[in-house]
């Protein structure tokens, strides 16, 4: 029982890392209708900015808050200057453009700060406590709680606020939204800005655990995409639950399914994606996108 609980707790801990990125992907998708592959890269850049601010002697929390603001501006600028050129065209083109941005941003990080690992300070204490026989680190608990809080805020933003409604309307049909007077361009910028801010939270939250490198979130991005497919592209709650499930199942499979073990556990999320795409393509908690032809 102790082992099982420990595996679940560790799974939730790594799952929360995937969840942070998955939330940012859902946010951009809900606000612009795109899948943004650059999300991971932008989150890493944010983490580097926070790192530099801490090097300058700023307290960590202040550095993170400033980074969140700067990232909002950066996300909005990326949308305005780069992504907007592709928004009127084929969505697939825009998605490819985000892959280009990912490569560019990762390259810039490597150029400025090199490929060596940097230690990033943690907001939460590194000690742990015992709970029903499982060892839980304060850092994992802190990450977990921050993710839950963001998830709730996003869900409320999208479902209960006028801004959320406007963001979703523009993502669904920008031209038609303009007919109702929605400031389409500004809303798309806000959507990207919010997603970049969220990326900054994700990046600074996981950097202590993963140590800061330009490719820090490459793997996490793949898991985050898996989580989003699993939980549903339209649902913040679904994305987080999906990320936790992946984290937990991956750990359990490694220990309890002998032929998977630690070597093959990376395959678990992909098997899950396959099963989900076959049986429930809208994801566990997502809404089905119906289109009449």
């Amino acid at each position, binding site marked *: 029982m102790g082992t099982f609980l420990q595996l679940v707790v560790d799974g939730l801990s790594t799952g929360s890392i995937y969840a942070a990125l998955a939330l940012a992907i859902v946010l951009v998708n809900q606000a612009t209708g795109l899948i943004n592959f650059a999300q991971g890269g932008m989150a890493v850049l944010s983490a580097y900015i926070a790192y530099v601010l801490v090097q300058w002697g700023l307290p960590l929390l202040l550095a993170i808050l400033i980074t969140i603001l700067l990232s909002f501006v950066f996300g909005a600028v990326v949308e305005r200057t780069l992504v907007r050129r592709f928004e009127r065209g084929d969505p697939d083109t825009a998605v490819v453009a985000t892959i280009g941005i990912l490569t560019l941003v990762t390259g810039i990080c490597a150029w400025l700060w090199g490929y060596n690992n940097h230690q990033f300070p943690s907001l939460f204490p590194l000690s742990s406590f015992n709970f029903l026989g499982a060892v839980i680190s304060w850092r994992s608990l802190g990450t977990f709680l921050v993710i839950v809080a963001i998830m709730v805020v996003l869900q409320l933003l999208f479902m209960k606020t*006028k801004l959320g*409604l*406007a963001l*979703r*309307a523009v*993502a*669904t*049909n920008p*031209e*038609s*939204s*303009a*007919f*109702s*007077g*929605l*400031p*389409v361009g500004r809303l798309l910028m806000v959507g990207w800005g919010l997603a970049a801010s969220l990326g900054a939270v994700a990046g600074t939250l996981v950097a202590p655990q993963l140590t800061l490198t330009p490719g820090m979130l490459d793997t996490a991005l793949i898991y985050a995409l898996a989580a989003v497919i699993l939980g549903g592209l*339209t649902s913040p709650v679904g994305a987080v639950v999906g990320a936790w499930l992946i984290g937990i199942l991956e750990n359990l499979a490694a220990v309890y399914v002998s032929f998977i073990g630690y070597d093959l556990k990376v395959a678990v999320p992909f098997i899950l994606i396959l099963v989900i795409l076959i049986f429930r393509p809208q994801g566990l908690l997502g*809404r*089905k*996108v*119906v*289109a*009449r032809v």
Partner: protein
Amino acid sequence: MALLELVDVTAAYGPVQVLDGISLEVPEGGAVGILGANGAGKTTTLRAISGTVRAGGTITFDGRSIRGIGPERVAALGIAHVPEGRGTLTQLSVRENLLVGAYLRKDRKAIPSDIDYCLELFPQLKNRIASSAAALSGGEQQMLAVARAFMAKPRLLLLDEASLGLAPGTARTVYQAIGRLRQESGIAMLIVEQNANLAFSLVDTATVLETGRNALTGTSAELKGMDEIRRAYLGG
């Protein structure tokens, strides 16, 4: 003075000239039809007004030029465009579509009663209020599109082919409701319609377009049954 006035409006898609000098007027509270065959420039005329296509000439609304100011600002001035193909926000619920329609309104307290009014005007939407707009039938989507435009409380409604793809009975129902909306709200309307009979059930005057020009303009009574109408439609 007319609420909306177009003088010598031109528009082109790349090298293809679509509007070659269109003129028309919509009086305050009036209903004007734009008739014509496919490719005559009816939809483009509406798009020129709402700012979704670059246009030349003069377009004035309530005495001020609105040419080139962009769809969002045109909407803010009180022009609601119900586009061809309805422009339904498919991933939003019916209620959310209506709320998006009311996005610019300052009188938030009046919005629930206006939603109720829409549901009374289009009772079919009542049971679907919480369902995704994508799940609606073509007729229901058209009703939703009109209702959403009404939620903006516009002074002018641009209505593009509201009967397109609908069964004749459904198209009549939609037009009857639009007629009632016109009577009760006094919103001026500029209506593009292929089906001349449906158009004449609603409009006071109409202009017939032929390859981007006004071929003929007159009152409904004058135009009804004229040979030119038939010719314009059949392209003969």
